[in-house]
């Protein structure tokens, strides 16, 4: 039998399983728990946490899926950001942001300005700066109109317009 009393703890008793207590465990369930590659002490701690907080979820499995570590966290793609009047272009990785507020805040920090409030009908009001982006079709769009995921996968580059050009993109022309 793979599992035995280790360190005086009968881990079988505290092991998570889907059936009633006292029934014979299936090998498969044994495997589910043994997948956690650690010694039995750590396993015990983890199962206890799970019992307390939430329904059984899969614990972290070492080396699964089998992707070498240098491949993970590797896919970065930068999008160029320009701001009218600024001498340098910048680059950002859209994947580091989860939504529009995060992105806009980052842009504000990067170029030291404020964007103003967005509303669907009228675009950005208040600052004279308008964040726009070029999408996969080559069209220049207002940042914020489409859902975030759609934006982040189709955005090719960003441009923060200001002044007269900005007003041309106001609600009247969109």
């Amino acid at each position: 039998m793979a599992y035995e009393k280790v360190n005086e703890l009968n881990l079988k008793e505290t092991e998570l399983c889907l059936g009633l207590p006292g029934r014979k465990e299936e090998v498969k369930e044994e495997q589910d728990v043994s997948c956690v590659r650690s010694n039995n002490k750590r396993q015990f701690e983890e199962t206890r946490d799970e019992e307390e907080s939430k329904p059984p979820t899969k614990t972290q499995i070492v080396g699964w899926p089998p992707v070498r570590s240098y491949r993970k966290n590797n896919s970065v793609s930068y999008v160029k950001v320009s701001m009218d009047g600024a001498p340098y272009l910048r680059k950002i990785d859209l994947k580091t942001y989860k939504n529009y507020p995060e992105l806009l805040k980052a842009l504000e920090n990067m170029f030291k300005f404020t964007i103003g409030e967005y509303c669907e009908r009228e675009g950005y009001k208040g600052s004279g700066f308008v964040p726009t982006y070029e999408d996969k079709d080559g069209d220049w769009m207002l940042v914020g109109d489409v859902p975030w995921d759609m934006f982040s996968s189709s955005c090719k580059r960003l441009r923060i317009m200001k002044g007269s050009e900005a007003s041309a993109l106001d609600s009247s022309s969109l």
Partner: protein
Amino acid sequence: MREDNLEMSENVERYLQLDPRSAAISQPPSSSSSAAAFVSPANKSRNCNSPCPDHVLENVLENVLQFLTSKCDRNAVSLVCKSWWRVEAQTRFEVFIGNCYSLSPDRLTHRFKRVRSLVLKGKPRFADFNLMPPNWGAQFAPWVAATAKAYPWLEKVHLKRMFVTDDDLALLAESFPGFKELTLVCCEGFGTSGIAIVANKCRQLKVLDLIESEVTDGEVDWISCFPEGETQLKSLSFDCVDSSINFKALEGLVVRSPFLEKLRTNRFVSLDELHRLMVRAPQLTSLGTGSFSPEDVSQGEQEPDYAAAFRACKSLVCLSGFKEFTPEYLPAISPVCANLTSLNFSYANISPDMLKPIIRNCHNIRVFWALDSICDEGLQAVAATCKELRELRVFPFDPREDSEGPISEVGFQAISEGCRKLESILYFCQRMTNGALTAMSENCPDLTVFRLCIMGRHRPDHVTGKPMDEGFGAIVKNCKKLTRLAVSGLLTDEAFSYIGEYGKLIRTLTVGFAGDSDMALRYVLEGCPKLQKLEIRDSPFGDVGLRSGMHRYYNMRFLWMSSCTLSRGGCRDVAHDLSNVVVEVFGSDDDDDDDFTRDYVETLYMYRSLDGPRKDAPKFVTIL
């Protein structure tokens, strides 16, 4: 007869009750055969007729054997008789050792006297996925020490999953004046200092390929260490070196390397820097594009004409890199698309819309690697254009078990319908069906490598809810050339019965989270005669299953079983009964050393060896 024979000591032969001739026929050809073909020279003369060598005949033979390059053929030749063995040993210039622990360096140098090229493989593949504690072994040091003395004319070293130190590289650079090719794949233990010494001292260097290796940043400007004057460099790959480089020195190096064909840069080379390199080396056939993202540029500045640089590279057939790519520059590669035979986008988060305009010109692509960010739609585009595709690898952008998974059986089936010449596939997904696997088995009869990873463990066919048995069954049944198979998803013992029944050419089998019982393991071990490498994790196989392969382990390179249901006693019995097989067991790092009461075996790694258990095993490894 193209088959190898594992030369065994007399004890082992008696145990297996094989006579030399039938042993020769029953063993499968093996790529680890050079280890297998070693013979203890003293005892046997098999079918040898004359007691003393005929020198004339040996000279003739030597001239003939020069033409034999295949290791299978050479191993067969070496078994004919003692005289042939001797001549073959004199004329073997390339030695391949599939498991560095299957023999000692001394045995190598005693038998082969004129080695010019050495290929050595160390750790088993599952070490790549953190299933092996660090410092397990596979050190290059004893090998470089032995070969430094025995083969001063050594030209080529190719290492995979070995532990290589800077000192080892220094010894290599100093010991082999004619050294030409160094290839390190999935290696670790060395840094920029070691590379610098090789660059500086190996004046005949043609190939310096560092592939998927971990290189410590010693902050040494190794690129500047190449000597002045024209170099012999044909191939320079440093895309895995994750430290900045002296671009000016690199540019100078490229300029004085007229024979340079392959250049794989790392992510610290920006797009504009790449441009400068391409302009100076339009003869390149293979280019690793580095970051593929320009430096922060001033707004008004004129950008280089990247497309023109690509257009000028008329011989370019292989592109990779794109490590931090900026999408708007992707179209710059369009001029070379029609010539490309190999395209690696697997570091680039490319969407279907980015891919489609590029791939529609890639009619000649044979090898395509990408992330699943291309979605089923992207795969359909590949299927529509890439009729010459031989190898496809699709990696997960989000490699987690419960990730969304943008590709499925839809893209998979499209590929099978469009790319009929497919030979090798590696596919990570979250949803798959038996129907799609069956379709591929019927559409792509040339498949030799089939590796499917359904990332969610134990996932059934997502349409029917059934196990994936039938799909994999179709693959092994219809793909008659299949030599490598990796299975996943919900699989019962039935899947393994299919593998045992039809997988007659399978040499490498990878199993994880699959099967119901020892029968599964038994089907495979009894049914697959060519099986060389068997790697299993987290499956309900125990001592009974292990024993069912006793007749096979001498003919295999290795067996790996981790997080199965093996007991120490069961493994010990195997070790006892198979004297030329080394049985290593080890657990996770924090196992207590003296916890001998533990009967459960976390990891079993066993392999045949001519020289007994290794002497460099770390504390956490027990050799039974």
